[in-house]
Structures are given as structure tokens and as C-alpha cells.
């Protein structure tokens, strides 16, 4: 709890910082106009000093003739705060988030075990759950995500974990390629997120059914299955997490890919903080998603693998969707007998 608070504080501080910059620059401009004629004044006696300037603005900015706006900032002590965040808090936060997620899932697995398929009359019959394009979109996004997550974590943990193992030279090379992959695979990832939004938006609009589903804890607790459409509330949450975090990561990421294009140093620091915090939350969330999609539920992988799920399973987990699909085609997409996955 303390950690989240600190994170929050850092964020708030950063926001206030940016706001303060705007505010103080106006007051400074006014002063400029008043102090127009220095006739009769003693320029030596009134020299500016650090303390005075820091009272006006958290960073000291002046005039410089080279056409590089960044260079006009003389001192920005906020770099120290950024460093505090990145070195003191971020490793612990991310370790906690990632390891915590793994631990929680482990516990869940330990207590709940693998959720096995319930055998029923329709077991063995198949229904197409995701068509090829959907699966393509999913896999493109997810494979990129895994690389992005690993290369992203490398920024935090690489020097702590990998570098001592393989040595600086090798690590330098690895990190260089990790950086390249992070920058370049961000693009298919962003496209993937956009594709998923288009493909699955209409099935992910939250509705009343979701409330019941949540009230029933999604059926994870107990053995009663709440009704659900194509996506149950849990999946919707994953969807919206991917969309929300994905776009936040994209926006902040783009700002970082094009440094200083739209913002100054304070903005860049803020982008970094946001990107990192959301990133680790994203990783934790996706870990849960991966767990449910693979280990957590029997035969889960094939849902995205082949796209076809067991009709019986579907009727249990997504009864409303199955009804809808079967209404579309009288026969329904019934295929041969097979092992049945779920997600």
C-alpha cells in the first residue's frame, strides 16, 4: 500500500510540476515588461541567484543562441526525482508487480487447481470461436507484447540480473538489440491493439449481464456458471485493460520514440514514469490472462490456436453467445470431435 501511495505521489508531483511551469512562466513574463528600463540601477547588486530562481520555477531556464530548446534549461533538479523513481521505486514496484502476480497465480493454482472441463452432452462438438484474422491479430499483438515486456523489463532489471551473468560487453549488445526490438516491435503491437479494438469492440461493451457475472465471481468460486455473451466480464476486463493500457503505452511510448517533439524535459520524465508504471501493471495483468488461457483452464491454448472450442464448454461459459451463433446458422458450426479448449 505504501508503495502504491508513493507511486501515486510521484505521479502527482510530476503533474504539479508541469502545471507549475506554465503558471510561473506567465508571472515571469509580466515581470519582464515591468523591469524594462534598468536606467540608474546597479546591475551588480541585483544579480540573480539559484535560490531566487528556484522559487520562481522548479527548473532554471535562460536564453541560449543555439537552436536547441533543451539547452536553454540550465538546471533541472527534477532529474534527481526522476532518478529516485527509476532507481529506488521502480525496480521494487515492478518486481512486486511481476513476482506478485506470479505468486498470486501460483496460490490460485495451488488452491483452485486447474479448472477442468465439465463433460456434457455437447462435449466433443466444436464451434468456431475466433476466425483466422482474429487469431492473427491476437498473436501479433501478444508476441510483440512478450518481446516488449521482456525488453522493457530489461531496462529495469537487465543490469541487475543479466549483466552480471553475461558480462558488460555481451550485455551491451543484448541491450542494444533489446532496445531496437522495443522500438520497432512497438509498431506491430500498436497496430495489433488497434485491430483488436475494431474486431472485438462490439462484443466488449459492458452490460447488465456482466454485473451478474461479477457477482457470481465469474464461476471461479463455487461451481455455478453465470451467463455470458461472447465475452464474459472477466474477458471484457482483459480487453479493456489491453485497450486502455495499450493505448496509454502507445501514447507515452510515441512521445518517447520522438523525444522532445511535443514536450520538454519535464514532460519526458512524466512520460517515462507513466510508461513504466502502466507497463508493469500491464505485464501483471497479462500474466493472469496468460495463466487463465493456458495453465489455468484445461486445454485452453487451442482456443486461440485453432480457433475452435468445444460446444459444451461454450454453452457453459458463453451460453448467450452460443445461442446467438446457433440462431445465425440453424445447424451451427458443428465440427468433428476433438479435444476441447477454452480460454
Amino acid at each position, binding site marked *: 500500500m505504501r508503495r502504491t501511495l508513493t507511486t501515486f505521489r510521484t505521479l502527482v508531483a510530476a503533474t504539479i510540476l508541469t502545471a507549475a511551469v506554465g503558471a510561473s512562466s506567465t508571472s515571469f513574463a509580466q515581470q519582464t515588461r515591468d523591469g524594462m528600463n534598468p536606467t540608474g540601477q546597479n546591475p551588480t547588486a541585483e544579480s540573480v541567484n*539559484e535560490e531566487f*530562481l528556484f522559487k520562481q520555477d522548479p527548473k532554471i531556464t*535562460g536564453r541560449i543562441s543555439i537552436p536547441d530548446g533543451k539547452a536553454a534549461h*540550465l538546471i533541472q533538479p527534477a532529474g534527481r526525482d526522476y532518478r529516485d523513481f527509476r532507481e529506488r521505486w521502480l525496480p521494487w514496484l515492478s518486481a512486486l508487480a511481476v513476482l506478485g502476480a506470479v505468486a498470486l497465480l501460483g496460490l490460485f493454482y495451488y488452491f483452485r487447481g486447474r479448472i477442468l472441463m465439465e463433460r456434457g452432452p455437447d462435449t466433443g462438438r466444436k464451434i468456431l470461436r475466433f476466425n483466422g484474422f482474429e487469431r492473427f491479430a491476437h498473436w501479433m499483438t501478444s508476441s510483440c507484447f512478450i518481446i516488449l515486456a521482456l525488453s522493457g523489463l530489461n*531496462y529495469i532489471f537487465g*543490469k541487475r540480473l543479466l549483466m552480471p551473468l553475461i558480462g558488460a560487453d555481451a550485455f551491451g549488445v543484448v*541491450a542494444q538489440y533489446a532496445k531496437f526490438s522495443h522500438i520497432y516491435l512497438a509498431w506491430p503491437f500498436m497496430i495489433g491493439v488497434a485491430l483488436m479494438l475494431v474486431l472485438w469492440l462490439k462484443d466488449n461493451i459492458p452490460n447488465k449481464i456482466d454485473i451478474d457475472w461479477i457477482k457470481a465471481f465469474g464461476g471461479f468460486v463455487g461451481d455455478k456458471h453465470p451467463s455470458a455473451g461472447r465475452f464474459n466480464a472477466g474477458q471484457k476486463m482483459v480487453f479493456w485493460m489491453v485497450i486502455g493500457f495499450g493505448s496509454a503505452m502507445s501514447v507515452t511510448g510515441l512521445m518517447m520514440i520522438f523525444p522532445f517533439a511535443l514536450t520538454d524535459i519535464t514532460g519526458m520524465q512524466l512520460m517515462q514514469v507513466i510508461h513504466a508504471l502502466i507497463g508493469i501493471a500491464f505485464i501483471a495483468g497479462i500474466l493472469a490472462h496468460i495463466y487463465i488461457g493456458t495453465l489455468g483452464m484445461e486445454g485452453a491454448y487451442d482456443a486461440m490456436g485453432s480457433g475452435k472450442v468445444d460446444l459444451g464448454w461454450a454453452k457453459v461459459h458463453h451460453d448467450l453467445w452460443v445461442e446467438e451463433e446457433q440462431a445465425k446458422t440453424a445447424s451451427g458450426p458443428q465440427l468433428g470431435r476433438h479435444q476441447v479448449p477454452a480460454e
Partner: protein
Amino acid sequence: MARMKFLCDADRCIECNACVTACKNEHEVPWGINRRRVVTLNDGKPGERSVSMACMHCTDAPCAAVCPVNCFYTTADAVVLHSKDICIGCGYCFYACPFGAPQYPKVGNFGSRGKMDKCTYCAGGPESDFSTIEYEKYGSNRLAEGKLPLCAEMCSTKALLAGDGEMIAQIYKQRVIKRGYGSGAWGWKTAYRETVAI
């Protein structure tokens, strides 16, 4: 053991930019990369002061701390240097640096900005002293020749001081006592968590 620092006496600095071009001259730094720069505060108004700024070679340097590949190291003279072989050009050091010291050969996108470059306190890099490759990657190594950074040595009004921190603080103190004013050791609080008490 000397603890090398920079101190810019803003009451002497006249924004002549000698430090900037001396640096270019000594290390053949290309256009667009300014290891040192001069910023004028309160421009055109009474109290105007100019301050020459480069890497301050901080105590517990933030750049070194945030570097994801640990390419920084601190020499026995407390000069903060880095290895361009390991650097991945990520730019985190620029975000952390309170003084805007890190520079990148390419501007535009983060992906391939090249290796970070910054003031070396005229102390070269990790390669062996006076080697061609050291010179080409980091510039010349005056410190190993027993000389101080050229920017400070050539400062037109001797505003920019370089050398052992205690010695230059002493010089500055004496100046302030002599003349009766002084706007302080710019950046020292941020860089060294101390200031020159008069």
C-alpha cells in the same frame, strides 16, 4: 585524492562562449553536439547573469544510476565517464541529468540516436590513454597529461574554474570576500549536495 569539479563564477562569466569553442577545438566535437554551453539568465535585465554549464561530474551521478546498461563509471578523480561500447543511446541519462549534459549524435527518434556523448572533463574514456581510438570516441585526454579541461583553462575572464573541488571553492570564496558579492556556485547543490559557504 583530488575530487574534480567545475565552478562557474557567474559574476565573471560574460557569455563569451570561449569554453564552448575551446571544447570543440580540443575534441573536434561536431556541429550539433555541445558538451558545454552558456545560458544567460534574466537576459537584458538588471541582474542578468550567464552561466557556463556542462556535465558537473556529480557526486552519486544520476545518469550513472538510471543507466539501464551501467555504462557509466566514476574515476578516482571523481570524473564521471561512460563507455560508448556499452551505451545503447536510450536517453535516460538525459532525463535524469540535472544539467542537460548528455548529447546524442542523431536527433529525431529514440531508436537509433547513436551513442551518448558528454563532457569527459577532458579525461578521455575507458580505452587506454592517448590511444587513437580513445581520441576518436571521447576526445583528448588532458587529465592524463596533467592538464585541466581546456574550457576552464581558456575561460576569458577566468570565470570557469576546474580542478580539485576544495581548491576551486577556496578560490571562489576568496574572490567573493575580496569583491563583496557573489551569486553562488551554480549547480553545486544539485550536483554535489553542497554549496560554497562564504
